[in-house]
Structures are given as C-alpha cells and as structure tokens.
C-alpha cells in the first residue's frame, strides 16, 4: 500500500486536518456558528481518520509509525508510532470524539456558551489532537509536549465559565495538581532517559534500564504522575471539581477519554515499560483500584449535583479498570501469562465501556442541565415526560454503568470477576489466594452500590413530579444532541451483545504486550467468551437477552388484559395533597447508606428551628459529610506549601544586585559540581 491508502499517512493527515480546521475556526471567530462548524466538523473528520487507522492496526496487528517533523541541523525528529495498545486507546478516542463533536454543534449554541462557542470548539479540537498525540507518541519529548498541551487545553476548557468563582478555583486546582503530576513524569522519564541514553520509547521502555531501588522509585513516580491524571484516590481531588465545572460535552470527553491517558500511561510505562513487574506493584495497583472503586461510588452516592455525581463515578470506574490491571500485573509477576491476559482484557474492555456509557451519561446530563437550568437533582423530577428520549438513553447508560446484564458494563465486570476467580483457582500463591476473593467481594459491593446510586440519580432526576420551576418548563433536546446519545446507547447494547468480537481485538492487544499470552479459548465465536480453556465459566449474552425477551413476552401475555382499560388516578397522598414537596428526595434516598457507612462519611448534621420551641415556624436541616482527603491530606499539604513560600519570600528581596548574586552563585556552584564529579 502506498500514498493516501497507507494507514501510516492517516495520523499526520488527521493532525493536519485538526490544525487546518482550528485555523479556519479562528479565522471565523467573529461568526460563532460558522466557527463552531469549522472546528467541530474538522474534528469529526479527523477522528474518523484516527478511528480508521486504529481499526486497521487492530485488524492487521501491524504497528504503523513515521515522523511528524524533523530538524536536520539538530537531528531532532518528532516521530509517532501506533501499536496495538495505542490503537485501542485511539479507537476509544475516535468512538467517543465523533458523537461528542456532533452533540457540541447543538449544545454550544445555547445560553452563555453561544458567545464563547468558537473558543470551546477550538479548545475541544486542540484537546482531541493533544490526546491523540499522547496515545501515538513514541518518544519522551513528543509525549511530554502532548501531555502538557492536553493539560493546558483542558484547563482552559474547564475555565470556560470563568465568571463563577468555583469554576476558576476548579481550573486552578486542576492545573496545580496536573503540574505536580507532570513534574513526577519529568523526573521519571529523565531518570530512565539518562540510564538508557535515549529519548525514544523503544529504548527507554524496552525492559528496565534501571534496577533495584531506583526501579521502584521510578515506578512510584510514574504511578503518582499518571494516577493524578486518572483520578486515582487519594490523588483524585481535582476531578470532582473540574469535571462538573466544564461544559457538559467537555466533561464527557474528559471523563470518557482524557482521564484514560493516565490509564494508558500506567499500561505503557508502569505495567509494561519497566521490565517484569515486581509482585508488590500489582498489589499496590490492586489496592489503589479497590479503594478508588469503593470510595468513589460511596462518595458518588452522597452527591446531589448531577455532574458531580457522574464525576465521582468516573473515579469508581477508574478503580475498576485498575483492579483489572492490578490482577493482570499480579499474575504477570508470578509468570502466569494466560491469567494476566484475562485481567488486562477486562481492564481494557472496561476502558472502552466506560468511555461509551460515561460519555452517554454526561451528554444526557448536559441536555438536562441545559433544559432545567440547574445541576441540582433535588430541583429536577418529572423529566421522563418532558424529555422522553433523553430519559430513555440516560436509563440505558445508568443500567450499563451499574454493571447490569444485557449491556456492556456487565461484560467487562464479568471478565474481571473471571480474572479474580479463575486466578484464584489456578494460583498456588497465598497472597493471590487471599487478595483475589477480597477484590471480588469489593467489586460486587461496588457494582451493587453503583446500582443504588443510579436508581437515585435516574429516579429523582426523571421521575414523578417536577420539583422546581426549571424542571416543570423543560423541553426535549434538539435532534442534533439526541442522535449522538442514541448512537452511544446503541453502542452500550452492541458492545454487550458481541463480547467475542471485542475480545478478539483485545486478545491481539494483550498478545502484543510483553509477557502476556492470551489463551485462544477466551473467544468462542462472535457471541461467546470464556476466561480460558476448560469449563470454568463462559458467557453468551445474546442467549441471556433472548431468554429475557421471551420471558418479557410471557409477562406481556399474562398482563394483556391490563392493556385495555387502564384507570388513571392520582397517587394516594395519605389524605393530604400530593405535591413535589412530599416526594422522596435524593438526600432521603441515600440516607440509609450514609448512616451505615458513617465511619467513612463522618456526617455532621445541623437542625435549626425558627420560632417557639414547641411550635416552630420553620425547621432548617443541613447534613454534610466530611471531605476526608481534602481536609486531612490536602489541607496540611497546602498549609505547608504556603508556609514554606512565606519563609522563602526573604530571598526575593526585589533587589537586582541580590538576584545577580544568586545567578553567579548558581553558575559557580554548577561549575564546581561538574569539576568535582570529573
């Protein structure tokens, strides 16, 4: 193959397309609608190209690469390479990037966003291109450049509605934490590059240029650096602030794809770039995953801001993804190549699934927020009648994220259970035998709590009577916003029905990773999967779906008579009049779990009565949970940094002579250091 048909040309073409459309959009900035179309349309086309490239790499198994720009005088070459791991993440990017761009066409035309839509659309395009480069970079320089570009573009997008103080704070927090993380990455990469004597991933990440304690230190640096981006607890505090603050289509992209760059980094560097993983690494990742999954969903349960709730669920799902990676690494460190493949496949499958259903949920939430003018679910309600399509798609996403069968979330969680139980079955090590069932129980708890959370989120948002003005006047979103949701909802179903097809692709990805050897028996045709050879377990979702459909037919036949004459009556209000005020609230719905897990939440409540003690005119009630990490980890840290800055103010006296003296002292000490070291 050659010329335009050569997949190697598609990535540069996609990037060039993005650049061109960004230029065009900037030129048209005075006409927001045209500018929007230019940036987002170009982004769609570029994503199509990227998706096609990723598909062809996954289908043929051949990595493609090339150089984007080279400077002969300095010998600097910015090159890229798309292997199967990169291709998987690029596919996720394309699959979500296209519907989000289309949704943005409608979404950005409303309210305060309309004036800023050229800015948001261009920012979106830059962000897409940067993430694309992160996944495709094959050297330290290109990777870190793209990484920084991604962080900056993302921070700018978070600050879109910068009139709101909270938004500015969220953007600042995001920037600050991201830069600490980037610092960790710089340190880690420089240590590796110095040891390997090269900046290219092929040298730096081929096995371990460092060993012993330095290898552990490098692992921890990367874990922290990538962990911040992925939102792993306890490095997550920026995530529930930044995701809700951004416009909803950007939130969808952030949750679906951008945080996955952290996961990609963990795969590329921590798991498969530093030589055979130490047993402790897998355990550490498992622990991070378990903590993130359970605490993420527990905190999500207490949120009444729809987008914040979804943001905490991103933390939960990152936890689930890490549980898979941790299981894979633990298996890998004890040389169980086939078992490792199950964990890796579960993890990567969930990366795809989470992008699809979380993208869908954020897009749905965006429509709801736009229609009601609020993010607070206690002010919503009754939207199923006013926005029937949005409600249906949101329900599909809710069921998928809760890991319920017939949808995609179930398949990846099924595979993860297999990684734990099959691994348990096959493993002689005591550690694995202890950890894997514990992780399995945590996963069961997580998905059951997620189901409870989405019963609350969906029920309170969409059902019963509207609780506020905005909800009562809400209208359905335009088709340009509904069509992408329909597509993603359909993907939730499709990805849940053809697991064999998806796993076939993943088997290739897993096989390309050092030390992992997936069993061919994992895929049993288009529709059936299994954890490995033998009869441990298998799953054929279409048969389950068929059984449910048949049984639903039975239910329909039994209640057929009901279809004829249904009487409608008001809900019994216990003698009073039923109104939105008597409905069960989201706070009340999650109250039992708040009391049961009070050791984690440490709730405080405050009841105030106004008026006479026995006949109060008004009762005010306030319940809060303790932001444990913010208060006990980041509070002291921030105070420490500020105190140190206060002390260091002394040397910044404002005198030019003093500054010159510092420079001279620095140069002299560097020269001395060089002379001393030889």
């Amino acid at each position, binding site marked *: 193959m050659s010329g335009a048909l050569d997949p190697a040309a598609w990535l540069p073409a996609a990037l060039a397309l993005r650049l061109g459309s960004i230029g065009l959009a900037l030129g048209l900035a005075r006409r927001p609608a045209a500018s929007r179309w230019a940036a987002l349309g170009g982004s769609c086309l570029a994503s199509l190209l990227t998706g096609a490239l990723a598909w062809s790499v996954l289908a043929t198994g051949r990595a493609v690469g090339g150089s984007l720009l080279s400077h002969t005088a300095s010998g600097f070459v910015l090159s890229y390479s798309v292997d199967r791991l990169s291709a998987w993440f690029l596919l996720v990017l394309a699959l979500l990037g296209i519907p989000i761009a289309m949704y943005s066409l409608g979404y950005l035309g409303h309210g305060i966003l309309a004036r800023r839509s050229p800015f948001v659309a261009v920012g979106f395009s830059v962000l897409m291109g940067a993430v694309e480069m992160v996944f495709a970079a094959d050297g330290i320089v290109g990777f870190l450049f793209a990484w920084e570009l991604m962080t900056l573009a993302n921070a700018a997008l978070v600050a879109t509605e910068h009139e709101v103080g909270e938004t500015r704070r969220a953007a600042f927090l995001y920037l600050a934490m991201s830069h600490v993380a980037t610092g960790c990455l710089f340190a880690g990469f420089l240590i590796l590059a110095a040891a390997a004597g090269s900046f290219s991933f092929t040298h730096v990440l081929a096995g371990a240029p460092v060993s012993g304690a330095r290898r552990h230190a490098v692992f921890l640096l990367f874990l922290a650096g990538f962990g911040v981006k992925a939102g792993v607890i306890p490095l997550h505090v920026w995530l529930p602030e930044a995701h809700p603050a951004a416009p909803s289509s950007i939130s969808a992209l952030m949750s679906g794809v951008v945080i996955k760059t952290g996961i990609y980094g963990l795969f590329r560097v921590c798991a498969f770039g530093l030589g055979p993983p130490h047993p402790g690494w897998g355990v550490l990742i498992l622990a991070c995953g378990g903590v993130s999954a359970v605490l993420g969903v527990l905190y999500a349960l207490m949120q009444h801001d729809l987008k914040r709730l979804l943001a905490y669920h991103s933390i939960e799902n990152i936890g689930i993804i890490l549980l898979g990676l941790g299981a894979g690494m633990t298996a890998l460190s004890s040389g169980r190549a086939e078992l490792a493949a199950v964990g890796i496949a579960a993890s990567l499958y969930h990366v795809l699934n989470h992008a699809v259903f979380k993208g869908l949920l954020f897009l749905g939430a965006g429509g709801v927020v736009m229609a009601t003018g609020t993010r607070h679910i206690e002010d919503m309600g009754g939207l199923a009648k006013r926005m029937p399509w949005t409600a249906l798609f949101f329900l599909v996403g809710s069921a998928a994220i809760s890991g319920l069968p017939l949808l995609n979330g179930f398949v990846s969680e099924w595979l993860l259970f297999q990684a734990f139980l099959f691994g348990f079955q096959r493993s002689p090590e005591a550690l694995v035998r202890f950890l894997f069932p514990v992780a399995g129980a945590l996963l*069961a708890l997580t998905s059951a709590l997620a189901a409870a959370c989405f*019963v609350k989120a969906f029920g309170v948002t969409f059902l019963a009577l509207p609780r506020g003005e905005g909800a009562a006047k809400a209208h359905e979103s335009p088709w340009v916003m509904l069509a992408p949701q329909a597509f993603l909802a359909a993907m939730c179903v499709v990805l849940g029905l053809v697991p064999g097809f998806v796993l076939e692709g993943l088997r290739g990805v897993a096989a390309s990773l050092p030390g992992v050897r997936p069993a061919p028996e994992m895929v049993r045709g288009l529709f*059936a999967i299994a954890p490995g050879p033998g*009869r441990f377990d298998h799953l054929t979702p279409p048969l389950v779906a068929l059984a449910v459909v*048949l*049984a639903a037919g039975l239910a329909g036949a039994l209640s057929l008579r009901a279809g004829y004459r249904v009487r409608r009556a008001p809900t019994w209000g216990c003698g009073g009049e039923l109104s939105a005020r008597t409905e*069960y609230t989201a706070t009340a719905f999650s109250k039992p779990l708040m009391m049961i897990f009070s050791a984690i939440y440490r709730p405080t409540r405050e009841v105030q009565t106004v008026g006479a003690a026995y006949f109060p005119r008004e009762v005010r009630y306030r319940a809060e949970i303790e932001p444990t990490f913010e208060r006990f980890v980041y509070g002291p840290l921030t105070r420490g940094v500020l105190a140190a800055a206060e002390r260091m103010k002394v040397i910044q006296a404002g005198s030019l002579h003093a500054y010159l003296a510092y420079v001279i002292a620095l140069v002299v000490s560097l020269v001395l250091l060089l002379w001393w070291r030889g």
Partner: protein
Amino acid sequence: MSGWTHVASSTPLSLARSFAFGLLQAAVLLAVAPLLRGVIKKMKAAFQTRQGPPLLQGYYDLAKLLRKEPVRSETASWVFVAGPRIYFATAVAATMLVPVLFAGAPLEQAGGILVLVGLLALGRFTLAIASLDTGSPFGGMGGSREMTVAALAEPALMLGLFTVALWAGSLNLGDLVRTTAQRGPSGHPSELLAAAALFIVLLAEAGRVPVDNPATHLELTMIHEAMVLEYAGPDLALVEWASALKELLFMTLLVNLFLPLGLAASAAPGAIAVSGALYAGKVFFLAVAVTLVESTNAKLRFFRVPELMALSLGLGFLALAIRFL
C-alpha cells in the same frame, strides 16, 4: 449438556430445544412458587395456633389480580409500567440458568452464577426505579431500603457462591452441580459455613424476618412491600408472582448446590419422579427452616440489618479461608 463444547457446536435446533426446556422448567417453577408461600404461611399460622389462609390462597390472589382493572398513578410514566414486566422477565429468565430436577440447567450455555446474580440485580434495579415514579414517599422509602439491603447482601451472596463454585472448579451452575453430585457432599466445615452465609442472604433477598416482614404494611417497617405499594391489578400480580418465584429460586439454588442428591441425569420418567420427590422434600425442609426463623425472631431494626449482612459476609470469608488458604 456440558459446558462450552455446547457453545461452539450449538445448532439452531439444539438452541430451540434448550429454550423449550427452559420455558418448561420456568413454567413448572412458576406454577409451584405460590404454593411454597402458602406452605410457609400455613406453617407460620400453625406456630401461632391460628388456622391461617388456605394453602392455595396465593393462586386465588393471583387469579383475581390478573383479572382486575389496573389502576395507575397519573404522575407515573412508562417506567412505572415497564418495572413489573422487566422484574418478572428477569426472574423467569434466571430460572433457566438453575438446575432444578436435572443435573444440568436448560440454558447453561448462556452463563453461570454471575449472570444469575446479574439478572436478579437487573430486575431489582428496574423495580426500584419504578418505585420512584408515582411521587409517593412510600415508594422511594421502599426503593431506597431495598437497594441498601441489596448492596450489602451482594458481596455476601457472591462470596458464598464463590466458595461452592471454586471447590467444584466451575462458575457454571450446570457443571457445578454435576461435579458436586459426582463427588458427593464433602462434609467439609466450609460447606456448612457457606450454606449458613447463603441462608442469611436468602432471608434478605426473599424479604423474610429478620430483614423484612412480608406480612406487614406499616410504613416504618416495610421494605419490599413499600416499594410496590402503588401497584394494583395485573401489575401487582406480576410483582407478587416474580417475588414468589425468586424465593423459590434461591431455595432451589441452596438445596441443589449443597445437596445435589438424586438429580435426574436423563429424562426417564422414573428418574424425574425420584428427583422431583427429593427436590420437594429438600425445599420443604428449607421452608421449615425459614418458618422457624421467621416465627422465633423479631424483625431487626433496619439499621441492625448491616450487622446481619456483615455476619453473612464474614461466614463467606471464613468458608473460603478454611478451605483454600
């Protein structure tokens, strides 16, 4: 009727046969389920020296409800209508994954324990969502409590099932039962612990005392009943029937996992008769146990339920630990 070779080689004809078998088994269980509730009610009444309702009262109720005019709230949307239907459908589909009279499940090529648990969770999820649809605070209260109890019961349920499954070397219920039946009960203490753990989960999932009280309509105590309070007529019939089926399903699971004696290996009438009689006996024994617990205990305060579930979870861990660590 074995595992995965079946998947690879399943023809449309064999699939159709599996589904026919599955629907037949579901129909049998659907037919028996209300009787089980009747038996338990009768025994409970005997404990309280009452006469109790007739054994067949459950059937009379269902027949009446199915004929009645459905009344639905003006506030409710399509979600309210879908709830009972999906709840019923998932419960029926779940029965096809469970071995009842035979040493194999009709639809075992579809999946195993995880699919079973997932289907029941899906049913609960839809019904709990539907409970919020009428705007009545009772629905929300019931839905909230049901999801809370379910969230706590799920890890315990999984651990209990895993203990049995890992010992048999398969998460597929058909394979599992065949292996255990071949080996015979080991009498290992871990099996007793796992059975105890699952028995506690059974009480929670079936809405029995000490977790929930199926005989009350007092708002402070009810869980499941509050969730379905707004249903009437055929909608209510579907919910009631599916709940009875779920209870029978859990009991079947418990007796066939721990005592897979006399399961029929073929469709010979003699084998089926023996297996049917043994099955009835085993389920009756379990029903007696449920009645005893229900008659001699008071319902726990809702916030004491987590302790019970923690006990079940602990038993599950212990069962796993003493067998495998």
